[in-house]
């Protein structure tokens, strides 16, 4: 394991220090760790708080700012944060209009955010939670912990963030977040595993001509190992899983996100985007908004995910609305 780190146990703390130094427009707190808008709390605005294990950067800290999150709570690498910092962040950004927790669907995240919400409620803060579960690689059934929350989370945070910024109330913001979650589907793959700093060894093994299909964002093994094949064939497999699931239909307008896992060069993401776009076009589905880059990563893993979100006019407007965060910015 070679990494640009000092002490494995200081990775999150030192990265937060770096973020604080690089982004004076953010307030970065340690003990307990959280990142929030320097101008929070904003009176009368619904506040959005998200969080989860570290190692997915820029998720979530890179999405704190105007038009998106009010605070992000990073846990240890790939480990849900504990309730304390979630409560702390929730209290710090509540502007009196309530707080929406955006939680990726993992047992740890759900349980810790639940406890935090109970504690916040005990201090008279109104909290609602939306649990994101966009990953079609995992069967959602009685026999699993349910689908995982992956790259679709970014789309929920952007669109719900814009709704909060325009002044929607807590019910409305929560409803929009739920609706985005209901309309987005994601599937991922990996060429290489990743190594959690404190573990020191790769999360799984892959042969020189294998890839892992249906990977999550925690270096967990995926649905199946497959023999390596050309980009277009891989994308087609992923898109079939995504499109058939909702299902997306001819005539739909969609946002297409091709998300790098952290170690994939941008040139490859564009090659994947090309085919994903072609796949949709062949089915009469029109890509009206696009995003290509590293948004929800898994440390240095090489691989990518495709997310498709069905857009309506409101989603499109909220997507286009100004956003000013470290990792996503336009309109101001």
């Amino acid at each position, binding site marked *: 394991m070679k990494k640009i780190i000092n002490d494995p146990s200081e990775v999150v703390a030192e990265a937060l220090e770096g973020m604080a130094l690089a982004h004076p427009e953010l307030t970065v707190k340690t003990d307990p760790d959280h990142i929030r808008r320097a101008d929070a709390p904003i009176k009368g605005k619904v506040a959005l708080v998200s969080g989860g294990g570290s190692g997915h950067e820029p998720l979530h800290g890179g999405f704190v700012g105007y038009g998106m999150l009010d605070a992000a709570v990073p846990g240890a690498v790939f480990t849900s*944060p504990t309730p304390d910092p979630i409560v702390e962040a929730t209290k710090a950004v509540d502007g009196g209009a309530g707080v929406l927790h955006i939680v990726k669907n993992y047992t740890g995240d759900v*349980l810790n955010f639940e406890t935090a919400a109970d504690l916040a409620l005990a201090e008279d803060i109104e909290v609602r939670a939306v649990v994101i579960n966009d990953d079609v690689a995992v069967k959602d059934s009685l026999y*699993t912990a349910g689908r995982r929350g992956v790259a679709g989370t970014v789309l929920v945070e952007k669109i719900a963030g814009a709704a909060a910024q325009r002044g929607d109330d807590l019910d409305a913001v929560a409803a929009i977040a739920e609706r985005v979650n209901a309309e987005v589907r994601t599937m991922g793959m990996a060429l290489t595993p990743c190594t959690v700093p404190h573990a020191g060894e790769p999360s799984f093994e892959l042969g020189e001509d294998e890839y892992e299909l249906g990977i999550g964002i925690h270096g967990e093994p995926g649905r199946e190992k497959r023999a390596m094949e050309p980009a277009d064939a891989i994308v087609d497999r992923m898109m079939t899983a995504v499109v058939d699931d909702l299902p997306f239909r001819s005539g739909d307008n969609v946002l297409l996100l091709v998300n790098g896992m952290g170690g994939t060069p941008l040139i490859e993401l564009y090659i994947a985007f090309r085919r994903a776009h072609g796949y949709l076009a062949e089915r009469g589905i029109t890509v009206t908004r696009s995003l290509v880059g590293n948004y929800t990563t898994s440390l240095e893993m090489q691989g990518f995910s495709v997310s498709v979100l069905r857009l309506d006019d409101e989603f499109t407007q909220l997507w286009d609305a100004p956003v000013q965060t470290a990792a996503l910015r336009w309109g101001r």
Partner: protein
Amino acid sequence: MALNSQWVREWVARSAQYIADNRTELIRLDREIGDGDHGENMDRGFKAVSAKVTELPADASPSDILKTVATTLISTVGGASGPLYGTAFLKASQAVKDEDELDGAGIVALLQAARDGIVARGKAEVGDKTMVDAWTPAVRAAEDALAEGATEQQILSAAADAAKVGSEKTDPLIARKGRASYLGERAIGHRDPGSVSSALLLKAAAEVSP
């Protein structure tokens, strides 16, 4: 021999030691079918617990100590195991409230409460390949031992042995809760890390029991 707060303190200390000793193994197990942090999470948590418990006043009751364990685990472990073990110790603390000494029935009540807490939070059943697969057989074995008139030490030993067997029995299972459930059949052949840490905690409890 009834167990007092000294037992709880020693249980905590021995648990912390076992978790530290097995940190790498728990990480390895979690890497196979999870995300590779269980050993790190538990070690971070029990190191914090050890420190906190040492700071407690000498006259802290078993319930007080267990409550400190609970809140410290909740605020330091994170992940799925943090809230689950946190709830377990919180419920255990409530089950032995106002008792200075725990007899066999007290011990069984403690274990039942812990197990019920885990099930209430995590909704897992036996066979779902989680820590419940260690706890539920442990509780049953403890109940049986109590019914047969066993000593506190024997009750805890029975629980610890059953937890270990229960943990081993997770090997062939498909998981239905937690991260391993994402893997479907690929989870077969791997032991659930949370069941292993649970068995370690119960082993510690038995070993320090006089």
